[in-house]
């Protein structure tokens, strides 16, 4: 696959000759097309959402699911970032949606509705984690567990993974496991920013840290993710069988 083809598929090549590279990411965050509904709007809440809120508060509670449906994944994934277990994350998400309903009158439209929900679920998930695994709960102190200076590993070339590879459970599992293995302070920033596509300012506000702290943690999370994922995926036999049956593997 050429560099141009890989860019078109959304995943860049790692192992091209540096001199061949004319199409580095240089315009914007690479996931602009994949933004979650938490941040897909420039101004939140939308008039439709505020209208739904008013009707629900007036008694039409059957409309509540319509209001929250666009944020199901964002709320679930936020919970997963904290509790690291799908069943617990689902419980947290349900609890958070119920809590949000009971406190809906407190939502005054001053923040994005999705951000308001995510803040609620993050609190729910942290409370649940304290109950489930009190000994394992990591400090929320801003500086606890920070790397002083993370040195990325020299892994050699990691050629492109076709975006179609995400159809493989194995590839998804590698990515999910790597996120789970991040220390909590990096994991929550990475999930909000890179999995859900929140901007730095909203991420900082939700986590009650400065934007500078978000950027620092994000950099370290991304470097750690690359160090964890690249060695596994570049040697994946399943990937080789599925996508590179003809001819040589591109990373050989």
């Amino acid at each position: 696959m050429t560099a141009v083809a890989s860019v078109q598929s959304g995943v860049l090549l790692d192992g091209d000759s540096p001199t061949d590279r004319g199409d580095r990411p240089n315009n914007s965050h690479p996931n602009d097309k994949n933004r979650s509904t938490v941040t897909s709007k420039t101004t939140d809440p939308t008039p439709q959402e505020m209208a739904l809120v008013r009707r629900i508060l007036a008694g039409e509670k059957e409309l509540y699911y319509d209001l929250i449906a666009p944020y199901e994944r964002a709320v679930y994934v936020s919970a997963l970032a904290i509790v690291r277990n799908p069943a617990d994350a689902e419980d947290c998400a349900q609890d958070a949606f119920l809590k949000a309903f009971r406190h809906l009158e407190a939502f005054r439209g001053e923040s994005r509705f999705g951000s308001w929900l995510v803040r609620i679920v993050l609190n729910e998930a942290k409370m649940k984690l304290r109950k489930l695994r009190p000994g394992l709960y990591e400090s929320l102190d801003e500086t606890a567990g920070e790397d002083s200076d993370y040195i990325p590993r020299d892994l050699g070339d990691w050629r492109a993974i076709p975006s179609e590879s995400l159809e493989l459970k194995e590839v998804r599992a590698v990515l999910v496991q790597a996120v789970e293995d991040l220390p909590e302070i990096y994991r929550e920033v990475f999930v909000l920013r890179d999995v859900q596509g929140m901007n730095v300012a909203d991420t900082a506000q939700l986590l009650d840290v400065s934007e500078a702290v978000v950027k620092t943690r994000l950099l370290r999370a991304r470097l750690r993710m690359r160090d964890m994922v690249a060695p596994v995926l570049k040697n994946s036999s399943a990937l080789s069988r599925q996508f590179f049956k003809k001819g040589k593997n591109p990373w050989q």
Partner: protein
Amino acid sequence: MAMTCREIWREVSNYIDDTISPEIREEMERHLAQCRHCTAIVDGVHNVIVLVADGRTFALPAGFSSRLQERLRREL
């Protein structure tokens, strides 16, 4: 003065998010054109970001929506 590898690593996120000045970007491009290790890091991070943002990576568990709606019906 030319940027070192360590300086490049500190800017990887800003480079990918395009939150650096044109001058720093130009410096980085010059370094990346000659440094295979930093090139692998930048593109590896970019790969990771693209892959995790794909909705298939962190999909909702099967039946999530129906279980949520059922609980809402029961408890609202």
